[in-house]
């Protein structure tokens, strides 16, 4: 097991290193001088220029430049934003929790709604039901998320006046960030505002979270359904049936835990597309997360923001992928054997 974990850690470090190289290469492609692209100070004074040159070893060869770059980035120094002049790390601290909040809630919706539907669907062998499920999940998979976001906002926000369609909370509430998750923080701020801030935050998150949950929801339904069908035909289930166990008990205790393993695995595969979707959802609903921040950075040619955003998102995905991999093999020892053989 230790050997396996070391291998995973090794993979994480190697992949991150390659990604850093790619990003380092990209900084030299931006149409500004490397000093500006790396530090984010647009018109450095001679003394600042000297500090930047030293910090990033701009006068020495490319390898020591890269090492200096890695040192800076890993110590959390991403330079300052070209537009706001605030440190990038500080801005990331503001926008990252908002993205997490949206992603976690969307993921929860997908799991809580998707798994029961998938299980129920696996029992229905009626041709019609199967076709309906295939059709709806494929449609959900094919929806351009920015478009469906707009449509939902139009129907439920404007026409029905039910839900706010933009932003995270009514900005008159001044919520002190404690956990960074606004839904929780607004609850903590109930001394000041009562519950109204919490309801407001909750109302704001519904539409973006539902929109973002469409993709994982369809995937979860599909995978749960096929995994359930697969598991239910196994002999140990039949053995359990033969022993006269209650069907509900069989499903929850015997079948579901095994059926959920591929669902879990699929979550890792889905991370990349999910992140792409999250960016589009954040832009459509003006949700102040990493995606919205990154896209604004591109509009404003804020090169330090672009680097910081891509770095953090990619690093998170690498990390989560490996984490899911590790957890997956912990709960499912069979896979470990395969993983030794290849990388």
């Amino acid at each position: 097991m230790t050997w396996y974990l070391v291998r995973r850690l090794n993979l994480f470090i190697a992949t991150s290193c390659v990604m850093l190289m790619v990003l380092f290469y990209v900084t030299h492609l931006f149409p500004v001088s490397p000093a500006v692209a790396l530090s984010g100070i647009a018109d450095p004074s001679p003394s600042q220029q000297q500090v930047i040159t030293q910090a990033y070893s701009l006068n020495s060869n490319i390898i020591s430049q890269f090492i200096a770059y890695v040192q800076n980035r890993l110590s959390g120094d991403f330079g300052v934003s070209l537009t706001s002049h605030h440190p990038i790390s500080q801005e990331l601290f503001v926008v990252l929790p908002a993205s997490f909040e949206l992603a976690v809630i969307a993921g929860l919706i997908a799991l809580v709604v998707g798994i029961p539907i998938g299980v129920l669907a696996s029992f229905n062998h009626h041709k019609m039901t199967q076709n309906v499920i295939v059709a709806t999940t494929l449609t959900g998979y094919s929806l351009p998320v920015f478009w469906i976001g707009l449509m939902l906002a139009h129907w439920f926000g404007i026409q029905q006046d039910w839900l706010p369609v933009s932003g995270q909370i009514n900005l008159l509430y001044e919520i002190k960030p404690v956990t960074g998750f606004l839904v929780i923080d607004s609850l903590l701020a109930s001394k000041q505002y009562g519950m109204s801030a919490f309801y407001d935050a909750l109302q704001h998150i519904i539409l973006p979270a539902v929109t973002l949950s469409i993709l994982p929801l369809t995937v979860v339904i599909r995978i749960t359904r096929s995994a359930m069908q697969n598991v239910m035909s196994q002999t140990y289930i039949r053995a359990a049936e033969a022993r006269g166990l209650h069907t509900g008990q069989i499903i929850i205790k015997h079948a579901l835990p095994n059926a959920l393993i591929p669902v879990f695995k699929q979550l890792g595969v889905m991370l990349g597309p999910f992140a792409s979707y999250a960016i589009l959802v954040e832009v459509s609903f003006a949700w102040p997360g990493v995606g919205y921040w990154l896209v604004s950075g591109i509009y404003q040619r804020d090169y330090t923001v672009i680097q910081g955003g891509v770095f953090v998102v990619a690093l998170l995905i690498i990390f989560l992928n490996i984490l899911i991999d590790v957890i997956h093999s912990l709960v499912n020892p069979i896979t470990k054997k395969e993983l030794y053989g290849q990388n």
Partner: protein
Amino acid sequence: MARIRIYQDDAIPSPTKRTWMAFSSNPFALIGLWLLFVLVFVMLFGELLAPFPPELQDPNALLLPPSWDQSGTVTHFFGTDELGRDILSRVLHGTHLTFGLSLIVVVAALIIGFLLGSLSGMMSGIKSSILGHLLDALLSIPSLILAMLVVAVLGAGLENVFWAVGLALVPQFVRAIHQAIHEELQKEYVTAARLDGANSLQIYWYVIMPNVWDIVIIQVTLALSVAVLDIAALGFLNLGAQAPSPEWGAMVMQGTEHFLIAPWTVTIPGVAILITVLAINLVGDGLRSALSPQRN
């Protein structure tokens, strides 16, 4: 000499035919295939079908609703946008950009990905491992972010979208082909062929490749739907096709400005994207299930 048939023996269908039979027994997949044919037809002849040029502005017909609305007219079947441009014509012309471009991008990415994937797949040891890490790193950047990174370097515009989406797709092809070849290489029939004295090239082309084509085909359909969605998403973010272009994502973006007054300027191009991606996914899904019994 005529063969005497004692038993009623059906001709054993070839693998291709078997796949087709499995595929065509799936009504959804057939619908998708027909939709794809229509799309290709529209892409090739859309300019002839369109009643108006895509950028023709008619100041007398601003924001006309679609024909099924009470105040709509048949001349502008899908209505007009805020500059009085015919939406039907724009959607037809947009097929070129959104669907046509994604076809070209996928073909280009396939060729490059295929070459790189084959090379790396046949390699082993440290070189293969380094390449694997490089691919893992590139794949960990979501395709949209990678495309955005390219746009940030090159600037917005449809011609840069080609590079952006292409660069995002290549690693996926390389990875899929690399893994498929690697998997096949470890199987026993390859060892058997090697023992028969086949060299690497022969093994690659005659032994492994016939079993990798399935993966390639499935990967193409996946890449195609990703390409359409990414091109449209970049257009929507105003990082891809620029303002007057009838690219579907850009049309949605332009429509959002008047969404409350003229929802059809957003709905119609959005439905066009949905139908295209759905058709691709239906075909892809059909192919996957048609091919899967052979693979397992």
